[in-house]
């Protein structure tokens, strides 16, 4: 059977994680490392140790901002940003779900918005996120100001050829 490490490496489809020699440069430059349960380089160690459930269940993979600082500075071109994408996708596909529920709900509301109109209509997307997350009261003071300044236009034009957009979601089996 494939080990967890082999599975992740296959999905990253680039430099294998074994190339990491744990110099911690990635962690030193990571803007959210101090909020993470496990540091970025620790996650590599855990994958090597086969700690599948712990990794997929961690908040770390959801708190990664995809700022790409780690891969930029890694002396061995280990692509931690891509690794985090792969782990998030594995957490969703394996049914583990997201430890940071609202972050995934935000992504789902965002993608639902594209599926609906081809482009993001910010007020509709926010309304959907708020319903899905139950986080109804954050940003209530910001939204009216933005509305008055014409930033939350209620009618942004949609993509015309919606069939092609829906097809993309169909064929890539959106979560």
């Amino acid at each position: 059977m494939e080990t967890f490490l082999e599975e992740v490496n296959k999905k990253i489809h680039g430099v294998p994680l074994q190339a990491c020699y744990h110099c911690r440069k990635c962690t030193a430059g990571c803007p959210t490392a101090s909020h993470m349960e496990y540091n970025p380089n620790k996650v590599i160690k855990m994958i090597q140790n086969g700690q599948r459930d712990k990794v997929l269940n961690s908040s770390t993979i959801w708190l990664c901002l995809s700022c790409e600082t780690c891969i930029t500075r890694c002396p061995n071109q280990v692509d931690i940003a891509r690794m985090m994408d792969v782990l998030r996708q594995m957490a969703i596909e394996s049914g583990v779900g997201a430890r940071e529920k609202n972050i995934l709900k935000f992504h789902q509301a965002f993608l639902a918005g594209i599926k609906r109109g081809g482009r993001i209509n910010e007020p509709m997307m926010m309304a959907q996120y708020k319903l899905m997350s139950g986080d109804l009261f954050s940003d209530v003071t910001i939204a009216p100001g933005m509305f008055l300044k014409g930033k939350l236009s209620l009618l942004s034009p949609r993509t015309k050829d919606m069939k092609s957009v829906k097809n993309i979601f169909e064929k890539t089996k959106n979560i």
Partner: protein
Amino acid sequence: MKVSYYPGCSLHATGKEYDQSMKAVSRALNIELKEVDDWSCCGASSAHSTNFDLSIALSARNLINAEKDSMDVMVPCAACFNRFKMAEHHLKADKDLKAKIEGVVGAKYQGGIAIRNPIDIIYNEIGIDALSAKVVKPLAGLKPVSYYGCLLLRPPEVCEFENYENPFMLDKMMGAIGTDVKNWSYKTDCCGGSLSISKTAIVVDMCDKLMSAAREAGANCVVTACPLCMANLDMRPSSGLKLPVFYFTELISLAMGLDGSKETFKSHMFDPQPLLGQLQLI
């Protein structure tokens, strides 16, 4: 010159000041913009965080539409720029992926057009001299720090941005329009944009750190080239630390005295007009 233009969703809503000032500045610099036909959202971090194929396919659909016009495509939003460059990178490196994605989108990807951000186009195609020549009102008294963020620059082999750890193009442009640009070491630090809504507390900390560093550097404002950085830096810092944030094109437009250049300042969340008024720039 003539280029394709991909505004992306943000430039039609929260980033409308960027769209307006970009169009005005382009006109003044003889860059003709042709909007990409029937574009759709690039998918941003929500697509690549959850579904790799979807993220490449959503970007590929737009690149394929842009290719019909056979011109370089200007992508002002750093997030869209990053997704397009990333899709191009993967499609060119992996034949099997390319075939799969073409099947998903239902069209062929040629890869023949350059994906460019407006900083690169203005700096390298128009040039600093031509830019200074059009300045009618140098922005004396304005002391910006330039903020490039992450997605224009990283990863470097994908984005191909000059001097990605200490970029200078935006600084040079701001100097050319008469501002007193301050140097700082946070040019490329992340502001947390992608978690702004779902994990606000962390992002407030990140923005506060940037604003404190800008103040320490002696700046009285921040200049950006990304609608997500703008939204984040304009809204998230704690109230005592906020500074006015501008799109670089808004300041170029003001220095060139273009029509409507004062209008876009009215819709910023943190009002920059008191500072501009005090410096007698508006």
